[in-house]
């Protein structure tokens, strides 16, 4: 059986004919070429495959692409807008929120969803939000700081004075 799916991925409508058993993570990576979403443990434990489905983080290795039919998906490729990094991405750079980068896309999508509903989360809330995702490099401390950095700088971004690609060199002014 082949089925036709249509969904909005990072703001663009996509359609494909797929087998029902195709998992969303593989649909994104292989059918759409969006390899920023990583594929890890296959058991919904590690969380590297997290994307947003209708604005909520989900583990895309445990969602069928068929289940996203008619819905909206956001991947790490959709965070940057018009050459301007999302404050979450900027925060991960400023605070060294990544080393190997494997967990990073999933962490950033979860963090983005957290800040969307809770603009000033406590450290505890940040740690809770990412508790279903594993990082083997950072010990999480720098990830938490990256999310805090983003929370602190979102207002500036909304006011038009936000970070741009030309300002990515870390200045340490926020430390």
């Amino acid at each position, binding site marked *: 059986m082949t089925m036709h799916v249509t969904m909005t991925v990072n703001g663009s409508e996509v359609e494909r004919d797929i087998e*029902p058993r195709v*998992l969303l993570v593989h649909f994104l990576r292989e059918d759409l070429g969006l390899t920023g979403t990583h594929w890890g443990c*296959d058991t919904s434990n590690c969380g590297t495959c997290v994307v947003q489905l209708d604005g*909520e983080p989900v*583990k895309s290795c445990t969602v069928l692409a068929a*289940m996203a039919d008619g819905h909206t998906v956001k991947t790490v490729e959709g965070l940057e807008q018009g050459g301007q990094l999302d404050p979450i991405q900027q925060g991960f750079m400023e605070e060294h929120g990544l080393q190997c980068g494997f967990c990073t896309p999933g962490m950033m999508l*979860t963090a983005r969803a957290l800040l969307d509903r809770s603009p000033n989360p406590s450290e505890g809330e940040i740690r809770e939000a990412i*508790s*279903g995702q594993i990082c083997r490099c950072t010990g999480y401390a720098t990830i938490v700081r990256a999310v805090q950095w983003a929370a602190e700088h979102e207002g500036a971004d909304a006011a038009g004075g936000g970070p741009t690609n030309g300002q990515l060199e870390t200045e340490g002014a926020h430390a």
Partner: protein
Amino acid sequence: MQIPAPFDYARAASVDEAVALLARYGEDARLIAGGHSLLPMMKLRLARPEWLIDINALDELDFIRRDGNRLRIGALTRHRTLLDSDEVRALFPIITDAERVVADPVVRNRGTIGGSLCQADPAEDLSTVCTVLGAEAVIHGANGDRVIGMEDFHRGPYETAVEFDEMLTEVRLPIRERSSSAYEKVERRVGDWAVAAAGAGVTLAEDGTIADIAIGLTAVGVETRVADAEAVLRGRHPSDELIAQAGQAAARAAEPLADQRGSEEYKRHLADALTQRVVRRSIARIQTTGA
């Protein structure tokens, strides 16, 4: 790469359509909601349905509704919704306790109460919670609804009273005066299955004696309420000594299996300690809220 075996997929637009599809495709069809139990089993070929019937579009089953002396929860209500519900926290804090430790926050965005109950994993939390709360399960089939208690619903590991052409649509929880509840789980890390967990629901009489009590255990080989532990406390004024005796009774009732999560002895110890804690917390919550 773990990928399910091939299957056909249908999306139900109503409860009746879902049930009709189940009847049409027979025992080789399965409903899928959150999918966080079923899809991992399908990847490992522990489950191999020929048909998946997606019920995620059934918004009619996503509700939390007070209806007189009961709270009605739709089967498609996500764990996240239950965890965030102030009404649930006020009436049944055991649910909030348990939802805080069901899987992890991202999984909770997808997983549903109906899926958890129908999966009936021995280490699953909500079966214990619903048993302790005296829940009724509403099961819909071609001939309409039937309503059964959790004792009849939950038949054992991975087994429920839901027939292949039926679906769980709702859970109904009785609201009682001067009552509260609590749940506590020990897990090795976030998202892991329980090493052991315990839940309690307590109703106090006007004179402070325990009018009614329900105690349940998770992941230690006990599928029903722990009658021996309840009997220690029912009708009595709660005291440290009696609560300790109830904990010991729970430990005796437990039939845990030693595995990588712990020895039999350790799990029995947890059954004892966690039972004591949830009984104490339930009583304290009644006294705090004056409910």
